[in-house]
């Protein structure tokens, strides 16, 4: 094994003296995030700032030869510890590798590097009258990593979550793989899916465990000139689900979020509200923070009188006026006929949540970051069919009661995902237990919910987070074994973000 000095010297030879460091202050900055309960903090041995793929290639070759773990980090903003070097090694900080290599209006594509953030991409695309599929995550996240791990988008219910056309991956061996247009030289451009097996899917959904993705070409769409945010209340969740299914099958909504709301009459103060409404309350709390206590109580009473048992909210984005108005009319008619009440105006004035998203929905932004205000954001997120929403919801409530947590203490929210086959819905149960107060309680609660979900049957986890992986492995059968084989093929020395996916 090389000594630490010689490794540092080699790294500095590759990226320059300023680019590589093993000073403790630098290492500390990369050692943890708020998900410490499930991903224990760990300092890397080295931090390297890279600027281009040749540097990455040399570093990977070095790491592969001496079995040094490598953790690729685009901006590191995932609050789920995906970039914490749990086995030490090198953190490959690609924040400065943030060029938008090309935006092509005629091709409606953008070719970006890992460090490009969602806000940066949205701003640049706007100059061409275009827009990427904007993530609902804060705009400081790396758009690159968000597409790689398939995030949530304001176009989730009409465009789905696959927005990568082709990408370039550096394997630990130093080889560079081109997916999608299968890299036939000379190619007409790294844009679209070419023939033969498409490898793009293989390297998606995996936090840098198969190789370092250094470049990707993503889909753009015309800037949505028209945006309409809606919020409907339902008292009958079954009718609501039926109406949602009908609307999704008509291929109308751009984003559709749904969920049940806790019993509003129990709300007295803002703290009740925050506890009951969970994530949705953050921005409200901010809006109400200036008003006096009784103003707040008055606002709570107003809302309690109006709030439904279940809600459907979201937006419609389109660039053609008459098609846009047709969608609005059809969606409203479908929901109203199913017993929905249009609460948009009331919600806009009282709580405001959902509507603080309005300009984000059109052009991206960071309103969603308000979810982080409590200092912890722990959520169990998975994909399942919408028609089993009630079963999943009931399960979470039962487990909460079992651990004497308030069953109404959190919201099971769902976002419908195009192309809607299998009623594929993103379902998230935000867990409002503060890990600092009751770490063990949260761990037990999460473990039990994960086991129950797997027993009840889900389509798959939203992402391979640490708290879901081990329970899933035994149930993955031959597919799990096959993924291990693929991992051994691309990363025989298991240096790529080890311990983060399968092994």
């Amino acid at each position, binding site marked *: 094994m090389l000594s630490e000095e010689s490794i540092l010297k080699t790294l500095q030879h590759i990226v320059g003296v300023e680019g590589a460091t093993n000073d403790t202050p630098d290492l500390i900055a990369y050692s943890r995030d708020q998900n410490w309960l499930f991903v224990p903090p760990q300092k890397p041995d080295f931090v390297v700032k890279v600027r281009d793929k040749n540097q990455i290639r040399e570093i990977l070759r070095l790491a592969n030869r001496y079995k040094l773990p490598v953790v690729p980090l685009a901006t590191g903003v995932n609050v789920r510890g995906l970039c914490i070097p749990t086995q030490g090694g090198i953190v490959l900080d690609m924040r400065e590798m943030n060029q938008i290599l090309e935006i092509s209006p005629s091709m409606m594509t953008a070719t970006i590097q890992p460090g490009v953030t969602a806000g940066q991409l949205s701003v640049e695309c706007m100059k061409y009258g275009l827009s990427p599929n904007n993530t609902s995550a804060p705009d400081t996240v790396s758009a690159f990593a968000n597409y790689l791990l398939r995030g949530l988008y304001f176009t989730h219910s009409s465009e789905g979550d696959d927005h990568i056309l082709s990408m370039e991956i550096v394997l630990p061996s130093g080889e560079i793989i081109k997916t999608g247009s299968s890299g036939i030289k000379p190619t007409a451009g790294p844009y679209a899916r070419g023939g033969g097996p498409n490898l793009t899917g293989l390297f998606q959904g995996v936090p840098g465990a198969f190789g370092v993705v250094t470049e990707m070409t993503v889909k753009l769409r015309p800037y949505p000139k028209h945006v309409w945010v809606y919020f409907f209340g339902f008292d009958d969740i079954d009718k609501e689900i039926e109406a949602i299914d009908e609307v999704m099958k008509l291929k109308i909504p751009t984003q559709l979020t749904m969920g049940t709301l806790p019993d509003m009459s129990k709300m007295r103060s803002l703290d009740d509200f925050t506890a009951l409404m969970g994530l949705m309350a953050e921005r409200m709390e901010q809006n109400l923070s200036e008003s006096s206590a009784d103003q707040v109580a008055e606002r709570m009473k107003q809302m309690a009188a109006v709030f439904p048992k279940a809600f459907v909210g979201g937006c419609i984005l389109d660039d053609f006026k008459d098609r846009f108005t047709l969608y609005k009319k059809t969606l409203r008619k479908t929901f109203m006929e199913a017993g929905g009440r249009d609460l948009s105006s009331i919600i806009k004035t009282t709580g405001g949540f959902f509507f603080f998203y309005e300009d984000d929905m059109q052009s991206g932004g*960071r309103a969603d970051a308000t979810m982080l205000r409590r200092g912890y954001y722990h959520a169990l997120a998975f994909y399942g069919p919408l028609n089993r929403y009630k079963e999943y919801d009931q399960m979470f409530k039962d487990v909460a009661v079992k651990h004497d947590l308030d069953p109404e203490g959190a919201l099971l929210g769902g976002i419908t995902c195009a192309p809607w086959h299998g009623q594929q819905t993103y379902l998230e149960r935000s867990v409002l237990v503060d890990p600092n107060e009751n770490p063990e309680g949260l761990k037990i609660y999460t473990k039990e919910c994960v086991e129950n979900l797997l027993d009840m049957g889900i389509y798959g986890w939203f992402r391979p987070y640490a708290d879901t992986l081990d329970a899933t492995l035994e149930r993955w059968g031959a597919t799990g074994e096959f993924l291990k084989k693929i991992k051994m093929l691309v990363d025989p020395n298991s240096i790529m973000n080890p311990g983060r996916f399968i092994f």
Partner: protein
Amino acid sequence: MDLEDWHDVASSCMHCRICVNPEFHEVGGWVPICPRGNKFKMETFYAPGTFELIRAIIEGELTENSPKLQKAVYSCTMCGACSALCEIYSAPGAKVKRMGKTFVDMYIDLRTEMMKRGWGPLEPHNAILKNIANTDNAWGGTRGDRERWAKGLGAKDLNKESADVLYFAGCTATYDPKLKGMMTTAAEIFNRAGVDWGILGKNEKCCAGPSLRIGDRDQFKAYAEENIELFKKSGVKTIVTSCAGCYSTFVKEYPEVADMSHIKVVHVSEFISRLLKSGDITFSKEVPMKVTYHDPCHIGRYCGVYDAPRDILGLVPGIELREMMQNRQNSWCCGAGAGMKTALPDVASETGVRRVKQAEATGAEVLVSSCPFCAQNLTDSIKEADSELKFMDLTQIVAMAL
């Protein structure tokens, strides 16, 4: 506060990096906002990195000093931008806001802890502290020179007489000959408006803001107590200062040392704006100039004084004010803050040059601000960037229009 008291805030950083770039809708582009991080790039030099450093120091994970630690801690201009952004969106900002504080308070306590452990400050900082201790000002200027600028400008000597307004010039403006105009114009305006004002002259001491921001809490406490005594003794109701640093120190730090509630502290831009509104002074001459205004962090982000300077410029006939891309709470720091100009001049210069470039981009001929530190650094930066821009203090513009 002690550093330990910040443990909860420090360990609740979500690493969401909202503090690294301002909201692009407001700014119209994806731009950096943290001078230190933008220059050194490593995460240690951004707020999330600093939070982890503080947590590591408190928890004993980081037990010995190192040049990298010093560089990380002392290259921060304390411009407060990260705090302003985090406050809106994320956890540490929300907690700090509930405490009525900002990240700057934490960074100050970090430097106090560094000094306590003998891990800092840097040599040039010690020179500043020594100057303040010996000559009551950071520049080593003699007490005698304190009042030289005011000779023949009709300023009462508040050590003996009494007046409504105490004009606190501030060391930097007093001892930097290039900035003399800031005070003389202020005096001219007071007289023109018939304001009953005076100065402390020789007895005017440094507000000790720099000592606090370098980490010498004791020196700051001593000077703060003396100054507050002096202010009470002078019996004035209002203190007006041209120096943004003094202004923020009087408004935010002094109340924690001793009761200051009986005295109202007003920045010169606020005072002039009030005089204009009350009609005590009016503009008569045309000032056909294209200008852009730089918000000094200590009056802007620290205290929310954004509109007064713009109201003034708005009333100046013939002037055209063009906003820079990054303005108000999203302003880019001039680079001089927290002893940067003396200790890490490369940070000050690089930050200043970037601000000059932003000013040029507006097509303005003159870059205006209202803080002696910004004045010094931006003037130097204009030279370094050999830009055709001219720097003028707000009061100089007012003088031209009177």
